C-alpha cells in the first residue's frame, strides 16, 4: 500500500482543525487567504470589533459564529454563548452593545426542546446584557450536514467618546489585570464533550462582560489602554496578540495567575497549559500603573470581577514577546501555539 499524501509536510492543501484554533495557523489563514481579498482601513485594525464613524457617532461592529459541542454544558449553552461572545467583543472596544442579529443553521432531526432551551438562554443572556435581538435568519440542513445547531451573531454597539481601549494602545509600564479565574470554559466544554470525570465539576464562566467594562470606564476612564476577552487560544494567545499589536513586551508572574484548583488538576492530567484554555467571561485589562489599584477595586466591586487581580506588567524589553517569571524563580517564553493543544501520551 502507498500513502496518498502528495504534498510536503510544510504545506497542507486542505483546511485542518488547527486553522480554527485561534493560534498561529488561524492567524496565517487570516493573513494569507482573507485579508488580501477584503483589504480596507477598517478591517486592517484587526480589533475584536470593527470601528466605524457615522453621523458623529462611533460604532463598533462584530460578528462571531458558534459551533460548540456539546450544545449544552455546565454553566450555559450555545445560545447564551452566542450572545456573550459577540457582546464581549463589542465591549472590549469600549462600546456599549445595543443590537444583535442571529443566524441559525439547524440540523434536521434536532430535538425541539433543545432548541427551546437554547433560544430561552439566548433571550435571557440578551436581556441581562441590555441588547436587543433585532433581526435573524434560520436555515435547516439535512441530517449530517451540521452538528445540531450553528449560530452566528452580529452585534452593533455605540462607543463612548472618551473611552477607546485598543490593542495597539498598551504601553510599557501598564499593569496587566485579569477580571477572574482562567481556564473554566475550555475545561467545562472538554470534560462535558469527552465524558471525562474529575472530582469537582468545572462550570463555564460564560457571561456578558459589559458591567465590568462599565465599572472600569466610570472609575478609571481612559487610563484603560487595552481590553481583551481571552477566548479561543486562551490568555496566552490574547497577550501575544496585544504584545505584537502594541510593540511591547509582557512579563507575567506565574504565582499570581488565578487558576482554579479543578482547572489546574484537569490540565495537569491532560497535559494542557491553562494559559491556552478558552475563557468566555474573563477580561484582561492593560491599565496605567497609577490607576491600576483603582481598576482592580472597581472590578472587584462587581460579582463577575470578585477575583480580579494583577498578573504582570507591560515592559520595554523583549517587544512582541510574552514571558513569565516561574514560581520557582526561572523565566520562560509564553508563545502562541501553532494549533490546538493536544492531550499527551503520559
Amino acid at each position, binding site marked *: 500500500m502507498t500513502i496518498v499524501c502528495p*504534498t510536503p509536510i510544510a504545506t497542507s492543501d486542505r483546511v485542518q482543525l488547527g486553522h480554527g484554533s485561534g493560534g498561529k495557523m488561524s492567524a496565517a489563514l487570516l493573513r494569507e487567504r482573507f485579508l488580501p481579498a477584503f483589504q480596507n482601513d477598517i478591517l486592517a485594525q484587526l480589533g475584536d470589533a470593527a470601528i466605524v464613524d457615522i453621523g458623529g457617532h462611533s460604532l463598533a461592529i462584530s460578528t462571531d459564529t458558534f459551533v460548540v459541542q456539546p450544545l449544552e454544558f455546565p454553566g450555559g449553552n450555545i445560545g447564551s454563548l452566542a450572545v456573550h461572545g459577540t457582546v464581549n467583543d463589542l465591549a472590549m472596544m469600549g462600546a456599549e452593545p445595543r443590537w444583535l442579529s442571529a443566524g441559525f443553521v439547524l440540523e434536521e432531526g434536532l430535538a425541539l426542546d433543545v432548541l427551546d432551551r437554547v433560544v430561552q438562554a439566548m433571550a435571557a443572556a440578551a436581556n441581562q446584557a441590555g441588547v436587543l435581538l433585532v433581526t435573524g435568519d434560520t436555515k435547516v440542513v439535512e441530517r449530517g450536514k451540521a452538528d445540531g445547531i450553528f449560530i452566528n451573531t452580529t452585534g452593533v454597539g455605540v462607543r463612548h467618546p472618551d473611552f477607546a481601549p485598543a490593542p495597539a494602545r498598551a504601553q510599557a509600564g501598564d499593569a496587566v489585570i485579569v477580571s477572574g479565574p482562567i481556564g473554566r470554559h475550555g475545561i467545562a466544554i472538554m470534560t462535558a464533550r469527552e465524558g471525562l470525570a474529575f472530582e469537582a465539576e468545572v462550570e463555564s464562566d460564560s457571561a456578558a462582560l459589559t458591567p465590568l467594562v462599565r465599572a472600569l470606564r466610570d472609575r478609571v476612564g481612559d487610563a484603560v489602554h487595552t481590553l481583551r476577552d481571552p477566548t479561543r487560544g486562551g490568555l496566552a494567545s490574547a497577550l501575544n496578540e496585544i504584545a505584537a499589536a502594541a510593540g511591547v513586551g509582557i512579563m507575567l508572574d506565574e504565582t499570581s495567575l488565578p487558576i482554579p484548583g479543578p482547572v489546574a488538576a484537569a490540565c495537569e492530567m491532560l497535559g494542557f497549559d491553562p494559559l491556552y484554555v478558552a475563557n468566555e467571561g474573563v477580561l484582561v485589562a492593560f491599565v496605567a500603573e497609577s490607576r491600576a489599584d483603582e481598576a482592580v477595586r472597581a472590578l472587584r466591586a462587581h460579582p463577575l470581577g470578585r477575583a480580579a487581580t494583577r498578573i504582570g506588567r507591560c515592559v520595554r524589553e523583549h517587544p512582541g514577546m510574552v514571558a513569565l517569571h516561574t*514560581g520557582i524563580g526561572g523565566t520562560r517564553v509564553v*508563545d502562541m501555539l501553532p494549533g490546538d493543544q493536544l492531550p499527551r501520551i503520559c
Partner: protein
Amino acid sequence: MRYLSEYRDPTVARALVAEIKRAATRRWVLMEVCGGQTHTIVKQGLDELLDDAVEMVHGPGCPVCVTPLEQIDKALALASRPDVIFTSFGDMLRVPGSECDLLQIRARGGNVKIVYSPLDAVELARKNPDKEVVFFAVGFETTAPANAMAVWRAKQLGIKNFSVLVSHVTVPPAIVALLESPDNRVQGFLAAGHVCTIMGWTEYEPIAVKYRVPIVVTGFEPLDILEGMLLAVRQLEEGRYEVENQYVRAVRRDGNQPAQDLVSQVFELVDRNWRGIGPIPRSGLGVRAEFAEFDAERRFNMEGIRTAEPEICRAGDVLRGVLKPFDCPAFGTMCTPEHPLGAPMVSSEGACAAYYNYGRFRSGSAV
C-alpha cells in the same frame, strides 16, 4: 493543590539549588531520561537557576520523538483506509511522517480520533462493528500496561475488529546504548519516575555497577528534579555509583507486579528502531503470537512503505544528548512547531519544542 504545589515551592527550590552548587566541586553532566522532565526543567527555568553548576543533557525519553518513521508511515497508511477508524493519543497527530501527518490525513477524509485511554478505542470497536478500529500503541513502560489491558480486554470480549499498531520501547536498553556510544558525555542519569512506577528499578542495578554510573529514579515536579540532581551529584562527588530512589512517593523497588504480568502476557521483547538513534536490540515490545489477531501489522498488508527523513534534521543527535536544540542549523528557522522537521519539535515532551516554546527568552536568539 495536594501533591502538586508542595513540589513547586520556591523556598525549598532555592535551598536545593544552593545545596547542589555547594556539593558540586566541578561541572557534572547529567541526563534526564524522560521528556516530561525535560519540559519541567525548561518550563520552570531550572537550568537557568543552576548557573550551569550541572549540565543537563536531554535524553531519548519522549515516546513521540523516538517512534520510528516506518511506524508513523504505517499509521498514516492505516488511517487513510476508508474501512479504518484510527485512534491515537493526541500528541501523535502532528508528528511528521515521510510525507504528511495524521492531522492532514484527517483533513483528507481519514477517520482519525483522539482517545484518552486505549480502552476507549476498544469501546469504539464494539460500537462500530462494520469498521476496523486501530489504536496506535506508543510509549515506554508507563503506557504499556494500559495498552496491554486493551488487547487483553478485546480478547475477553471477543471483539474481532480491534487491533493495535505497536511501537513500544523500553528504557534500560536505551541507557545502555547511550553509555556504549563513543561520544557519550553523560556521567549520571535521572531515570524516569513513571517508568519505574511500573517496572521498579532492579533492571538499572547492573547498569549502574557495570558502567560505574549513578542512576537516580526521579519524579517530574521541579523539587523532584532538583533533589534527583542533588543525589546524583553527591554520588559522583563521593565516587559512588548506585541506583537511588528520589521518587519514593510513587516507586517501589519491584514496581507494579500485576501491571508487569499483564504486559508480559500480551507483549514480548523485540528489536526496535528508535527514530534518530537507530536499531537497539531487544529494546521494544511487540504483540505475542497468542494475540496475533490484535496486531495491526499482521492484520493489514503493510508492504510498500518507503520512508524518507529530512536530511537537515539532527533529531538523533538531540535525542542522544550530543547536540542542544539551539545548535541545530534548522532550529527555529526551517523547523518550528508549525512546520516541524523532526518529532522532538512536535511533542509536548520533545526537547526541541521545550526549547522553542519556553527557552528562547534565555538564548537571546530572535527566532
